[in-house]
């Protein structure tokens, strides 16, 4: 059976005032039914653009899909009409956004916003949809869901709003749930609750989950497989244990080294020096070369772009992956 989602050689550009930025440059990956995949990387690495492209939510212009393919349940999403895509969005593939404070319509009751998601994809009455919305709010752990459904977003805390967003996303039993930094805007204590809720949601719906985050703690907690993105490319891909135990790309190694640890006595953090390359004029070779600890002056790194290849069960885009640790 083919995977639930197959993204192949996806390239996306943004027109900006300073020129054309290549936000995604040949991104390929698959998501199997029911699995949890994390996409990690720093700001601007292309995580969110990947998610938005998959669901057809990119604003075009300024964005432009240069090439590639997105197959979901054996249908090519990039070639679907707006209306066909709309029937999939919110039904088979749903999304939870980063900032729950602004992601809900401030002048509409929360229950109505959830009921709208239901009524868009199934022929039920207003009352039935509302009853289901109340059930969903109960399912995501909200006390007094009936009362809550009649309230407006400003009467909810951040964590409660994210619960409501998740209720909305799972309303139609999606096969794919994309969560874009779902915990970033929340307090640490609330983060844990939302993560466990995402796990519950997954159990309820059996949806494959794509979790976009820059928080490696979240990755370790949730994911089965990890994609590491850098400057619009996937630089490493592996199952979560093996990635944390023995990274095969110097960027991943740098990310892991920069996590503060309680078990090692150290006064300072270990950052990756430098900053990501400009997407307007990417360097010809490996985009990570200027910051790479492994490069040590090798000419290949700045002349030739490394392709993803398999090393020790990882996919890695590094000429010298065998030397990485």
């Amino acid at each position: 059976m083919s995977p639930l989602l197959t993204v192949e050689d996806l390239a996306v550009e943004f027109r900006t005032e300073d020129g054309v930025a290549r936000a995604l440059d040949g991104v390929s990956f698959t998501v199997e039914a029911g699995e949890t995949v994390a996409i990690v990387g720093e700001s601007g690495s292309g995580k969110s653009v990947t998610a938005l492209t998959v669901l057809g939510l990119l604003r075009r212009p300024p964005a432009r899909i240069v090439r590639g393919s997105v197959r979901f349940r054996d249908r090519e999403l990039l070639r679907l009409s707006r209306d066909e895509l709309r029937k999939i969005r919110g039904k088979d593939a749903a999304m939870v956004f980063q900032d729950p404070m602004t992601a809900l319509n401030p002048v509409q009751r929360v229950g109505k916003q959830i009921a709208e998601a239901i009524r868009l994809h199934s022929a039920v009455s207003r009352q039935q949809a509302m009853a289901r919305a109340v059930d969903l709010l109960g399912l995501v752990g909200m006390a007094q869901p009936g009362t809550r459904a009649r309230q407006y977003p400003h009467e909810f805390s951040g964590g409660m709003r994210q619960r409501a967003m998740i209720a909305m996303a799972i309303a139609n039993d999606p096969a794919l749930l994309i969560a874009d930094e779902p915990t970033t805007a929340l307090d640490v204590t609330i983060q844990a609750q939302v993560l466990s809720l995402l796990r519950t949601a997954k159990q309820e719906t059996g949806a494959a989950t794509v979790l976009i985050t820059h928080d490696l703690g979240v990755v370790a907690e949730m994911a089965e497989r990890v994609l590491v993105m850098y400057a619009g490319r996937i630089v490493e891909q592996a199952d979560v244990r093996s990635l944390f135990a023995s990274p095969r790309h110097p960027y991943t190694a740098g990310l892991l080294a920069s996590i503060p640890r309680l078990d090692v006595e150290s006064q300072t953090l270990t950052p990756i020096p430098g900053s990501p390359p400009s997407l307007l004029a990417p360097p010809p070779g490996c985009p990570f070369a200027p910051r790479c600890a492994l490069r040590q002056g090798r000419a290949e790194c700045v002349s030739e772009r490394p392709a993803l290849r398999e090393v020790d069960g990882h996919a890695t885009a590094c000429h010298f992956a065998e030397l990485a640790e």
Partner: protein
Amino acid sequence: MGAYLVRRVLVSVLVLVLVSIGIFWLFRLAPGDPVEMMLPPQNRGPGSEAFIAAKRAELGLDEPVWVQYFTWLGNAVTGDLGYSLDTGRSVSDLLGERVGPTVYLMGLSLLLALVIAVPLGLLAAVRKGRFADYAASVVSLGAVCTPPFFLGILGIYVFSLKLGLLPSAGMSTPGQYSVGDSLSHLLMPLVILAFSQSGQFTRYVRSSVIAELHADYVRTAEAKGVSATGVVTRHVLRNALIPVITIVALSLPNVLAGAVVIETVFAWPGMGQLAIASFQGRDYPVIIGFALFFSIMVLLSNLIADLLYTLVDPRVSLR
């Protein structure tokens, strides 16, 4: 809410007192007084001076301004706004018979302006940077830039004089009261006044909708599978109209000022005509009555705007 209303009314009364002091004092700084206006210099002979002095004393104009003011205020709180120096009629009667036509014309034109501006602004926003947007811009900027009196004169020339389709003056033809007749008198002043206002409103609706289209909740709605039309009608429009309420309330003095001009052009028997006549004749009691009416309209429209806010935006509550 009750306490809020009481507080607002008290503040409004204070504002009205301040407005009346300002107007009272300012108009007495202006050269000329009503008695001199009644008796132009070329008509004066011996004894005129004595007549003017007697008339001034009779009207109380020889007293210090603050004494005159408190006399007026004392009468005003009992509901007596004084008598016109020109016609001798009671100011409240004069205003009373003129309020109706003005409020009628203003209210309808405000409504029509919104009926034009909301769809036009929405269309321009949704089609931003395309033909419909530029077309809407041309129309709305034209509306902002063209003075209503010019359109009034143009309208009279074309539709009354050349085509003979519409009457050029008044609210109705004397002796012939019918709905059709009233409507034909109303049409030109109404459309011109509404068109002038709609330009500004269109621009505000457009920018407000454009701002809302970039809000996060729009993307949430799209992710749910809401259609482009549904996003605009079910989510964006209500959010976008919240700031427009304020703009409409703030524009009320403009509408009133526009109405004064249009009333003069079309001989509409409203406040505008009365105001201009009383300014020219230094008819102090009528001027103050008019200023108070103007102030009450502005205060009232602001109060209505605030109340509308609580209806439209659940985040706002009045305390």
